[in-house]
């Protein structure tokens, strides 16, 4: 049973050659039909994954940049709005101030005008009063004098008086 399987006994040189040739053929066939394509697809997958990772990384960076940009933009807009609001407020304040000032000036002007009017009225009143007092006193004086004058002198006086009144008119 064993003698054919012990080294040297039943030595089959043909087996060696057959095994060698068979193995080399198997290797060549597998390389062409199995291992080659398999290696190809595995490499392709590796490449694909690497590409995907790269793309994802790129997308992430882009998104981050965009986010930063948006954030800056937001900040800028907010600042602008704030400045605008402030401006508006200032303008309103100024306008109010101006209106108050105008009203104050107007009232002052009115007051001054009224004061002037009053003064003028008073002056004219004083003037007319003085005139009346003067004529009254003349009239009283003439009444008093009338009694003591004679006819002639009285007549002369009246004439004089009338002349005076006519002149005055």
């Amino acid at each position: 049973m064993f003698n054919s399987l012990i080294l040297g006994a039943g030595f089959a040189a043909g087996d060696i050659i057959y095994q060698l040739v068979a193995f080399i053929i198997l290797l060549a066939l597998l390389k062409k039909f199995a291992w080659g394509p398999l290696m190809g697809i595995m490499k392709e997958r590796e490449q694909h994954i690497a590409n995907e990772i790269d793309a994802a990384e790129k997308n992430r960076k882009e998104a981050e940049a965009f986010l930063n940009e948006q954030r800056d933009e937001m900040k800028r807009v907010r600042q602008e709005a704030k400045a605008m609001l402030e401006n508006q407020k200032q303008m309103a304040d100024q306008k109010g101030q101006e209106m108050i000032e105008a009203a104050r000036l107007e009232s002052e002007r009115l007051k001054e005008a009224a004061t002037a009017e009053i003064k003028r009225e008073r002056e004219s009143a004083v003037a007319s009063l003085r005139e009346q007092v003067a004529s009254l006193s003349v009239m009283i004086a003439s009444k008093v004098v009338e009694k003591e004058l004679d006819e002639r002198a009285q007549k002369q006086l009246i004439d004089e008086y009338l002349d005076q009144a006519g002149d005055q008119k």
Partner: protein
Amino acid sequence: MEHHAPTHDFLGLTFNLSNVLMITIASAIVFILAVVATRSLAMRPTGLQNFIEWVMDFVKGLIGSTMDWKTGGRFLFLGMTLLMYIFVSNMLGLPFAISFNEELWWKSPTADPTITLTLATMVVVLTHYYGVKMKGPKEYGKGFISPLKFLFPFKLIEEFSNTLTLGLRLYGNIYAGEILLGLLAGLGASGFGGALGAFLPMLAWQGFSIFVGTIQAFIFTMLTMVYMAHKVADDH
């Protein structure tokens, strides 16, 4: 159960026809398995493609553990073919053995020292070939006298012992497994009591043989890469 090898002389060479048959069958099975597994390749692997990619990653790991990938990448196909061929060969002898006219036809091709030593010699010759090719004849020659000159005879012996151990380890494991399987089968066929007694050991030994066959295929490929690394790697 006296078995002879069915030998045949052709062109002045002796052929063991059972070996020829089993080598052909093992090669065909490996080829069909590999082609079926890689027939519909997809970016998202399914079914057998997963398995074959696992094998490729496994052999990649073997190579990667002995040398860097730039040097060892070219041995990937060799490693995969060796692993699958030896594994299939080891498994072939497990389920049954067929003898015809007192001649043993169906067995593991790796249960024959001629076959295993052929594979081992082929591997060692390849290591020398790649050693010369990749490092140049001078560096290759230096490998025999480094680190010390007087180690030269030992290095020389090492080459032959490597070949012998690589081949005979595989042969011994598989042949022993088949012998015991044969004996158990003989016991089982001897009668009802024999069948009863042989059933459990048979079960255990079949399982163990599957384990041994797998391990031996792995060891053979692993050692191939180790010897290769010795010859082609600059510093290891």
